[in-house]
Structures are given as C-alpha cells and as structure tokens.
C-alpha cells in the first residue's frame, strides 16, 4: 500500500465516521420520538433520548479508557518484567511518530490485545500475557503496530463512543419494551385506533433500532480493522509477521475470560470465538481472519526503511 493512498483512506474513514455519528443520532431521535409519541409528546421523547446519550458520551469521553481497562483487569506494565513489550511499543511509536501510549498487561493466557483512549495524547494499549508469551518479537511488533494504527487513525475514540451509543440505544429500547410489555404507559392511547397503530410502530422501532445500530457499528468496525492491518504493516514494513500473529491469535484455543460483548470489538481478533463462528457477515465487527491474513500476504511494500547504518 502506497503511503498517500493510506492517508487518503484515513480521510475517507473520517468521513464515514461522521456518517456513522449522524446515523446513530438519527436512530436515537427516531427511537425517542416514537416512544415519546406513544406516551404523550414526541419532542420530550427525542430530547430525553439525546440527553441520555449525551450523559453517557460525556462520562465515556473522560472515563471510558479507565473503565475499559478496569473491566479487562489490566494493570500497568512493569518496567523490569515487561521490558520487551515496552521496548517494542517505543519502537513502534517512533515508526509512527506518535507519543508513546500507556502500556497495560492483562494477566490471561489467551493471546489478544486492544487499544483505547480519547486521542493520540490520551491513549492506552493493553496486551495479554499470553500474547507476549506465544508470539515472537516480530509478531508482537506487528500487533503493536496494528494497535498504534487504531490510535493514529482515531479509531479508539469512535469505537468507544459508538459502543456506548449502541449501548444507550439498546438500553432505551429495552426500557420501552419492558414498559409496554407490563402494560404501563399509554392506556389512553390504546383505546383509539391511531393509538394502537402508534403502539405497533413504537414496538417495531424499539426492536429494530438496536439491531440497526449494531449493523452500522459492525460495518464501520470491519473497515477500521482492515485499515489498521494495512497501516500496521506499513509501519513495520513486514506484513508477514502481522499475518502470522493473526493466525496464532485466532487459532489459539484459550478463551479470554475478561472480554465481553461490550469490549470484544476493541480487540485485534474477536475474542468471542463462538460468536465469530455463528455470526455470518453483517454483525461481525472483524473481517474473517483468513481474509485479513490473505490481504496482508498480498501486500507489496516499498522498502523505504534504511537499515541501521
């Protein structure tokens, strides 16, 4: 991949992120307005939905990275024991021109890694102990380069914010469904024909909104993973090592205990493996590993890296 093409891709990515944000905002508005209409006032519903989202997003903006790290049982890397890891992150920071992110280690034998944070100045990388035991230095470099690409491309911000928005939509829809199920709410509305139609529409929206939000999220996430693979390979000039690392991580039988539905999209390889097997296409947050490996192996990179003189 030629460097300018990559920068172009990053720009296109930024455009897609705006579409994604707009799409999520619209979904929220639709959900809020419909539910509001059933219970009285669409505008109140819309404003409530947006307010919930804004509160969630603000909390995430300032505390999201810490929450993600804490939920994953990550502890700061030890300068003595995790020396090689720290060195590799330093090397890749130089290769990418980014400030060195905070480095965390997760005590788990399943190999995997993720990046989180707000922007390149407030970023963190977490790596499992298994990753670091099972991969060689070159492969580890590939993985770290992939994660740093997520940081450079501002993926960390969008992935976290989108995950939270999708969560907010799911929460609102869930509340509404429960409320309707238990017969609370629009007694008055139910007695009129138009009211009944509104209830059906609201039900449909409450069911479809979270699904659409997840589809949007998955589509954007897949593109970002692919882009991070490519720009990671450009950083190390050694796509084969990242390809090997992906194969090793995906082929490892161990299960990452600390990963859950919310944090899974962050990892370099989807840690929820049963899901990966069942999910067909659209709901995947990662492209199939074989596809990623094949793409990396087909790359021809310009060797512009002068060796140590």
């Amino acid at each position: 991949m030629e460097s300018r093409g990559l920068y172009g891709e990053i720009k296109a990515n930024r455009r897609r992120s705006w579409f994604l944000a707009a799409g999520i905002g619209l979904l929220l508005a639709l959900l809020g307005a419909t539910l509001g209409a059933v219970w009285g006032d669409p505008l109140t519903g819309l404003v409530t939905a947006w307010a919930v989202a804004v509160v969630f997003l603000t909390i995430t903006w300032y505390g999201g990275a810490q929450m993600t790290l804490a939920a994953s049982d990550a502890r700061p890397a030890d300068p003595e024991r995790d020396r090689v890891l720290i060195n590799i992150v330093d090397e890749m920071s130089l290769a990418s021109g980014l400030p060195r992110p905070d480095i965390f280690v997760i005590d788990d034998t399943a190999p995997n890694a993720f990046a989180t944070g707000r922007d390149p100045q407030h970023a963190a990388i977490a790596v499992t102990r298994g990753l670091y035991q099972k991969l060689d230095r070159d492969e580890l470099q590939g993985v770290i380069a992939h994660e740093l690409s997520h940081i450079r491309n501002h993926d960390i911000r969008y992935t976290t914010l989108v995950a939270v928005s999708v969560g907010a939509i799911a929460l609102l829809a869930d509340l509404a469904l429960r409320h309707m199920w238990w017969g609370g709410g629009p007694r008055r509305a139910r007695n009129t024909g138009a009211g009944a139609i509104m209830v059906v529409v609201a039900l449909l929206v409450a069911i479809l909104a979270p699904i659409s939000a997840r589809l949007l999220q998955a589509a954007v996430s897949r593109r970002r993973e692919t882009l991070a693979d490519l720009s990671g390979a450009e950083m190390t000039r050694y796509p084969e090592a990242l390809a090997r690392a992906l194969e090793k991580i995906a082929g490892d039988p161990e299960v990452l205990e600390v990963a859950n539905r919310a944090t899974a999209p962050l990892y370099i390889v989807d840690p929820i493996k049963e899901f990966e097997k069942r999910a067909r296409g659209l709901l995947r947050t990662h492209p199939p590993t074989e596809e990623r490996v094949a793409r990396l192996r087909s790359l021809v990179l310009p060797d512009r890296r002068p060796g140590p003189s």
Partner: protein
Amino acid sequence: MLGYGLGLLGLLFIGFIVVVAGWVILTYNGLVTLRNQLENAWSQIDVQLKRRYDLIPNLVEAVKDYMEYEQDVLTKVTEARAQAVSAQGPAEQAQADNMLTRALRSLFAVVENYPELKANENVLKLQEELTSTENRISFSRQFYNDTVMRFNTRLQTFPTNVIAGMLGFAAREFFETGNDAEREPVKVDLR
C-alpha cells in the same frame, strides 16, 4: 446602477482576496507543521544513536571477563564507538555508524559461543536494549523518510507548488545509508 455594480464587483474582489489569503495562510501553516515534524523526526534519530553509544560501554563491561580470547572483537566495538561519537558531518557519521553496527554484529555472534554469557541476566538485558535501539534507529529513519515523502509530495503537487517556493519551502532529501547490505536490522535470538 453603476454604483451598485461597482459595489458588487468590489465585494466579489474582496471575497476573492479573502479566500486566497485564507488559502495561503492555511497552506503555510500546514507546511510549517510538516517541516517541524521533519525536524523532530531528524532529532529522534540522533537521540537513538546517542542511546546506542551510551549502552555500548555497559555491554563491553558485562562481557569482557568472559571473553578473554576475543579481545580484538571488543576492541573493534570500542574503537568503532569512539569513531562514531567523534564523527564530523553526515557522511562520516553514516560510515562510522555502519562500522559500529558491523562490530556489534560480530560481538553478538561471538556471544553465541559462550553458554555462560547466553545465560547471564545482565547480558541478556543489554542485548535486548541494543536490539531495541537498533530497531529504534531504523524505525526513526523510516519515519523521517516517510515524513520527507509527505512533505515533498505536498510541495510538488498542485496547488501548493504554486506558492511553496515563494514561501521559502524546499524539498528535502531522503536519508540513505548508502549500504544495501545493512538494510536488515541486527537479529539477536538467544532462544
């Protein structure tokens, strides 16, 4: 009528000037940012080279008692380091650094023959640090070259090329080691 027409033309003209001035300012600032990134990337290379010079005496110290019969290898490393430290000008510097890399490579090769050294915690640590430093040197040069390419592309493409020269920006040269055999980073694998 006439006054109105002139007013419209005048407005258009002022708008045009504002747009052009805004474009020049944005272009200038963008180029300055890139040029600063270049300077920063260049100074990173020096930082890493210095890190290597600082590590070498420790390594020599750690291995010299074990390597009584390999004094010439150690002497070569020490000499190459001294030359690299005192080198004047980029060409001499590059040559001295090449020599140092070769000397280190043969030192690491010799270490392979000494089981006590391969098991020595301190030596292992120093080897990791030197491996990492070699990587850092080549990655910071790579980043420098990547940045040079972005900078030059920006300077040479339309419309920036129209004013870049007037604003005092000139294309930079890539960093070349001038030695293709040295393109691969030093490999140290003690496992």
